[in-house]
């Protein structure tokens, strides 16, 4: 018999209570996994979308909203002749309600720009020219909107024809409604406005040269900020707020877990007072008794954490099929996040066991003789 078997036996004394406490922790940890995974997934999906378009640098003004603020399209002219710039493509990217979908990415791209290049036609065709009242839909967007080639799509007040279904190579691209920039500017009354410039650098550009280029762009275009594609979404205040809210909500859920474990462990110490006194009477050191309680609560946290990770992953898989989210993001449930969630759960267990452990260490072994 090992110390761990004593610890696990302690938890098995009250299997129902142990199980319920574990479920409590699991729900808290599932919230951590789901919220943080979704939040990080938003960042990953957005970044992957940029990479798929072949964008190295993004010039935009990521304020507190999830989509960038518009600025004059003429600003792009200042950039395109800079050294190491291979190509630019101006865009207007929006997150708006489209027909029955609460939130849909609308990606309006400069006609002929490189950002059209990654789109593989699954069915139909691309618009004939920038003035054709037509859109192409990413595969997921078509699925969410229940559209096929030939259908019409209501965008703002205009009716546009769906002329193609495309595979954009990334979840954000596949979840987008894609059309020409000039058409969208006309529809939304934003003539001459863009909110993103995708920039592709010449092959062989070094990191230092890229850094120098972003600095020059920032000085030339004060209305926007140039950042590498990977850093784009991280610079968004909106994303930061979402991220902070995810962690905040998660910590609240974890706090509930702490209270649950503490309550269980206090009950355990109270119920097993005599047993603890017997252990002290037969020579167990107080430190060993405290360790036993801490190990029990840590094990409770660990098992709850594992349960929470499983629950969180399943929950996220179900959540992303919801119409409101589908096509917007790909949850980032990487091994580091899942391991972090389990570690948080174990730490929660240990912290919750501190007070009950201290209480147990205050018992006198003579109490074993009473009753």
């Amino acid at each position, binding site marked *: 018999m090992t110390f761990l078997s004593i610890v696990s036996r302690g938890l098995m004394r009250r299997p129902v209570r142990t199980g319920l406490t574990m479920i409590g922790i699991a729900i808290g940890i599932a919230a951590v996994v789901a919220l943080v995974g979704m939040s990080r997934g938003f960042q990953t999906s957005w970044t992957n979308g940029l990479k798929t378009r072949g964008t190295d640098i993004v010039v935009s003004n990521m304020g507190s909203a999830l989509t960038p603020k518009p600025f004059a399209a003429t600003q792009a002219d200042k950039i395109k002749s800079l050294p190491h710039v291979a190509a630019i493509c101006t865009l207007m990217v929006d997150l708006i309600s489209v027909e029955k979908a609460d939130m849909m990415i609308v990606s309006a791209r400069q006609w002929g720009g490189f950002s059209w290049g990654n789109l593989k036609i699954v069915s139909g065709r691309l618009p004939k020219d920038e003035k054709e009242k037509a859109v192409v839909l990413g595969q997921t967007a078509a699925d969410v909107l229940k559209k096929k080639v030939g259908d019409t799509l209501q965008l703002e007040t205009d009716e546009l024809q769906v002329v193609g279904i495309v595979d954009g190579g990334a979840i954000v691209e596949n979840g987008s409604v894609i059309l020409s920039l000039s058409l969208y500017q006309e529809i939304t009354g934003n003539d001459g406005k863009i909110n993103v410039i995708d920039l592709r650098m010449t092959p062989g550009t070094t990191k230092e040269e890229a850094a120098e280029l972003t600095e020059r762009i920032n000085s030339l275009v004060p209305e926007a900020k140039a950042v590498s594609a990977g850093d784009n979404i991280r610079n968004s205040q909106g994303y930061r707020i979402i991220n902070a809210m995810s962690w905040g909500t998660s910590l609240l859920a974890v706090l509930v877990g702490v209270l649950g474990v503490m309550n269980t462990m206090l009950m355990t110490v109270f119920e097993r007072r005599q*047993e603890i006194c017997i252990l002290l009477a037969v020579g167990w050191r107080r430190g060993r008794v405290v360790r036993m309680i801490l190990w029990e609560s840590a094990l409770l946290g660990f098992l709850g954490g594992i349960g929470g990770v499983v629950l969180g992953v399943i929950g996220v898989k179900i959540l992303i099929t919801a119409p409101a989210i589908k096509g917007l993001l790909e949850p980032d449930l990487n091994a580091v996040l899942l391991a972090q969630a389990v570690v948080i759960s174990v730490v929660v267990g240990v912290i919750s066991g501190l007070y009950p452990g201290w209480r147990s260490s205050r018992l006198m072994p003579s109490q074993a*003789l009473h009753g």
Partner: protein
Amino acid sequence: MATTNAGDECVFEAIALKKEYDDGQVQALRGVDLRIHTGEFVAIVGQSGSGKSTLLQMLGALDHPSSGQLLYRGKSLEESSDLAAYRAREIGFIFQAFHLLPTFTALENVQIPMFETSRPVAERKTRAMELLKAVGLEKRVHHFPSKLSGGERQRVAIARSLANGASVLLADEPTGNLDSENAGYIMDLIVNLHREHNVTLVMVTHDMGIAHRATRVIAMRDGHIVSDGAGVPSAVS
């Protein structure tokens, strides 16, 4: 006050030992002076509330005296920095209510005190098997306390008390919860252990038949020792 010395070495020496509860409202021990020597079998008798169990708790360092001194082999227990080690290695406890851990088998219960030693896992198990065999429970080692009779439970408790090779056994009414047949068996077992291993045995009992088997009987009343000598004092009998 007479003492019966079985060996030269003094195992316990109590000097003006007092124990009070509830801020002095209850005086369980009112200045006990006592010497117990190696290999003695001392029975402590007295009515309920006489202080005999409290004295046993003090000897086993289960509780702290309010005042006075208690020496174990010449060293003050109060000044000891490691009372847990004292309880683990020097003392074996046998309780009236057995006090086995209900979620552990007989074999596991006997191993519990050995966690405070450096014995490896396999050795702990072997030692526990040997002890259970010695008390005649080799076929009941995997049974939980709830599946054992009272006599069997007490035998497990005896095996547990010897787990770390204690030189002193402290028994608090060890047959109090047993029928006469089991009580006789348990007493024979404890007395044999005392004789064969020269273990010092201090036993609290109400049973004068058991007290008669001790080499020395201490009678207590109202927290005082009222008689101390060989045989049961007539007043107590």
